[in-house]
C-alpha cells in the first residue's frame, strides 16, 4: 500500500499537461456549448406564450428575460428551461405584463392609414387583429400601435375582430372599445353605412354594448326635377326600399299630369324617419309648379321653381309647412311663372279639354271634397282659365249610374261647386264661374263596365 502511495505522489507531473488540456477544452468548447444550449432553450420555449423573450447563456446557466401573460405561463416557461438537458440553473428575469383598467383598444381610419391602438392580451391575438385589419383596410397602410397588457374582458378578440370588419365601411373615424363598451365616431363611407354598422354590431359577443354611435353618413339625397319643355320628371338619389320606390312612383302618377318619368332612383338604407310622408308631401308641392326642382337632403326639403299663378306660392308653402313630419324642415323658393299670352274662348276650351284628357280631378269617395292629389291639375286649369279673362266658365259635375239618381245629381252639383270654390279662392272672379250638377244624365261611356263608370265620373268645363 505504501508503494501505491509513493506512486500517487509521483502523479503530479501530469497535472501540467492536464491544465493545458483543460484550458484548451474551455477555450474551444465554451462558445459552441453556449450556442447549443441557447438553441435548445429556444426550442423548449417555442410553445410558450411569451413576449420580448431573451435567452442569454453563460456557461451552463441560462438567464431568461421575457414578458409573460399569466403567472402560470411564467412559471411553466421557467420550468421548461430548467428541464433542458445541460442547463445548470435558470436565472429568472421574467415579468408579468402590466394589467390595465379600463381595457382600452381602438381602430382608427384616416385617408391613408388604419391604426390599431390600445392593448391586446396576447401576441397571437395581436397578430390576428393585424391580419384582420389588413383584410378590411382595402389597401390602406396598417399602423400597429398596440401594446400588450393583461386585463382584457372575456371574448375580447371576437369583439375586436367584429369591430375591425366595420372599418371597411368607414371613410374616416374611430371605433374604440373600453372594457365592454363600444364607441363609434367618424363618417361612413357610403349612404346607409351607419345603419349597416349598427346592424353588424348586434352580433357583438354577449356583454358587449354600444355606448355611443356618433357616425355620420353622407347626406341622404332625393331629387326630382320637373322639366315642362320635355314634359319629363327626372327622379334621382335614393329611396329606402322597393316598396317606398313603388309608393313614390304611384304618388307621382296621381299628382302629375302626363309627365314622362325618368327614374334613376337607387335603393339604400339610411333614409331619415318619415321619408315617404315627407317626399309625398313635397311631390304635391312640385306637382303644382310649372318648372321646378325638389331636393330632399336628409330632413331638409327644398322646393324651387315657378308657380302657375300668383297666390299659389303661398298656398304651396303653407301646405308643406302644415303637414311636414316632425323634425323636418322646408324651404320654398318660388317665383311666379310669367303670364302666358291671352287666348280666345275656343282655344281656352281646347286647352282645358286637353288637360282633362291627361288628368282627372279626384274626390273623396261619395263626397265633394277634392283630393289634394288633384292640386297640380287644378292649378293648370286655373292658369288656363286666367288666360281667357273675357270668357265665362261653366263647371259641370257628372256621375256614373250607380246609386240613387237624386243623390247623384246632388253629389255632382256639390262637386262642381267645390271646383268652382277652388277656382274662386285661387283668384278667378266669381262672376265668371257657374257650377251645375248633371248627375248621370250625360254619360260619355258605357255604365256597364268599371272603366266606363270611371270615365263618367268627371268634371267638365264649358267656355263661353
Amino acid at each position: 500500500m505504501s508503494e501505491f502511495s509513493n506512486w500517487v505522489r509521483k502523479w503530479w507531473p501530469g497535472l501540467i499537461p492536464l491544465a493545458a488540456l483543460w484550458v484548451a477544452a474551455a477555450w474551444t468548447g465554451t462558445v459552441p456549448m453556449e450556442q447549443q444550449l441557447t438553441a435548445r432553450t429556444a426550442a423548449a420555449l417555442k410553445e410558450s406564450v411569451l413576449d420580448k423573450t431573451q435567452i442569454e447563456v453563460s456557461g451552463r446557466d441560462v438567464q431568461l428575460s421575457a414578458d409573460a401573460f399569466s403567472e402560470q405561463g411564467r412559471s411553466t416557461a421557467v420550468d421548461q428551461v430548467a428541464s433542458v438537458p445541460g442547463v445548470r440553473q435558470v436565472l429568472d428575469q421574467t415579468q408579468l405584463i402590466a394589467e390595465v383598467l379600463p381595457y382600452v383598444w381602438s381602430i382608427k381610419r384616416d385617408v391613408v392609414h388604419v391604426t390599431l391602438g390600445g392593448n391586446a392580451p396576447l401576441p397571437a391575438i395581436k397578430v390576428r387583429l393585424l391580419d384582420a385589419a389588413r383584410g378590411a383596410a382595402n389597401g390602406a397602410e396598417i399602423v400597429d400601435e398596440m401594446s400588450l397588457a393583461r386585463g382584457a374582458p372575456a371574448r375580447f378578440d371576437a369583439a375586436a375582430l367584429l369591430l375591425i370588419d366595420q372599418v371597411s365601411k368607414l371613410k374616416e373615424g374611430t371605433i374604440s372599445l373600453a372594457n365592454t363598451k363600444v364607441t363609434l365616431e367618424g363618417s361612413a363611407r357610403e349612404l346607409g353605412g351607419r345603419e349597416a354598422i349598427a346592424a353588424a354590431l348586434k352580433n357583438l359577443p354577449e356583454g358587449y354594448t354600444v355606448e355611443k354611435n356618433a357616425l355620420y353618413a353622407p347626406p341622404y339625397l332625393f331629387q326630382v326635377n320637373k322639366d315642362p319643355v320635355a314634359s319629363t320628371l327626372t327622379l334621382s338619389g335614393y329611396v329606402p326600399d322597393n316598396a317606398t320606390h313603388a309608393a313614390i312612383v304611384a304618388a307621382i302618377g296621381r299628382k302629375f299630369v302626363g309627365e314622362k318619368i325618368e327614374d334613376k332612383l337607387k335603393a339604400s338604407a339610411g333614409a331619415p324617419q318619415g321619408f315617404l310622408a315627407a317626399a309625398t308631401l313635397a311631390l304635391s308641392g312640385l306637382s303644382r309648379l310649372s318648372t321646378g326642382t325638389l331636393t330632399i337632403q336628409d330632413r331638409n326639403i327644398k322646393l324651387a321653381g315657378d308657380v302657375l299663378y300668383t297666390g299659389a306660392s303661398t298656398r304651396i308653402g303653407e301646405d308643406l309647412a302644415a303637414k311636414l313630419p316632425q323634425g323636418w324642415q322646408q324651404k320654398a323658393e318660388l317665383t311666379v311663372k310669367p303670364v302666358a299670352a291671352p287666348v280666345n274662348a275656343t282655344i281656352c276650351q281646347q286647352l282645358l279639354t286637353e288637360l282633362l284628357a291627361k288628368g282627372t280631378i279626384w274626390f273623396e269617395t261619395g263626397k265633394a271634397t277634392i283630393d289634394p292629389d288633384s292640386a297640380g291639375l287644378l292649378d293648370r286649369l286655373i292658369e288656363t282659365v286666367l288666360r281667357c279673362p273675357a270668357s265665362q266658365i261653366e263647371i259641370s259635375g257628372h256621375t256614373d249610374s250607380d246609386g240613387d239618381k237624386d243623390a247623384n245629381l246632388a253629389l255632382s252639383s256639390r262637386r262642381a261647386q267645390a271646383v268652382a270654390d277652388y277656382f274662386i279662392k285661387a283668384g278667378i272672379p266669381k262672376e265668371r264661374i257657374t257650377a251645375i250638377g248633371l248627375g248621370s244624365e250625360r254619360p260619355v261611356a258605357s255604365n256597364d263596365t268599371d272603366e266606363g263608370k270611371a270615365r263618367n265620373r268627371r268634371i267638365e268645363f264649358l267656355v263661353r
Partner: protein
Amino acid sequence: MNYLVAFNWGWIAGAAALGFATGWVSPISRVRSLSRMALRITFVAIVALLAASFWRVLPGRAGYWLDLGLVMFGAYLAGCVAGAWLRYVLLLRPGLPRGEEG
C-alpha cells in the same frame, strides 16, 4: 453532468489517457515525490473545489470551467489509478519474472 461529459468527451478521454500514461510511468518515475503535506493541501483544495461546484458558488462560465476542470481531473485520477494498477498487475506483481525496468 451527463451533458457536460457528452459534450466534452474527447477532452475527458484525453485527460484519462494522460492520467493512464502518468500512472503507468509513476512506479519507475524518478521525479520528486510530493510531500505528505502538499498531498494533504491538494486533497483539501480538491474537496473545497468540489464543494464550490456542488453548491454552485461560481456563476456562469467560471462555474462551467470549474465543473469541466473537476471532471477532467477526475478522469485523470482514474487514468492514473488504472495505469498504475495495470502496471502492477502486468509487470510488478510478486511472483512475476522481473521485467527489464527493474
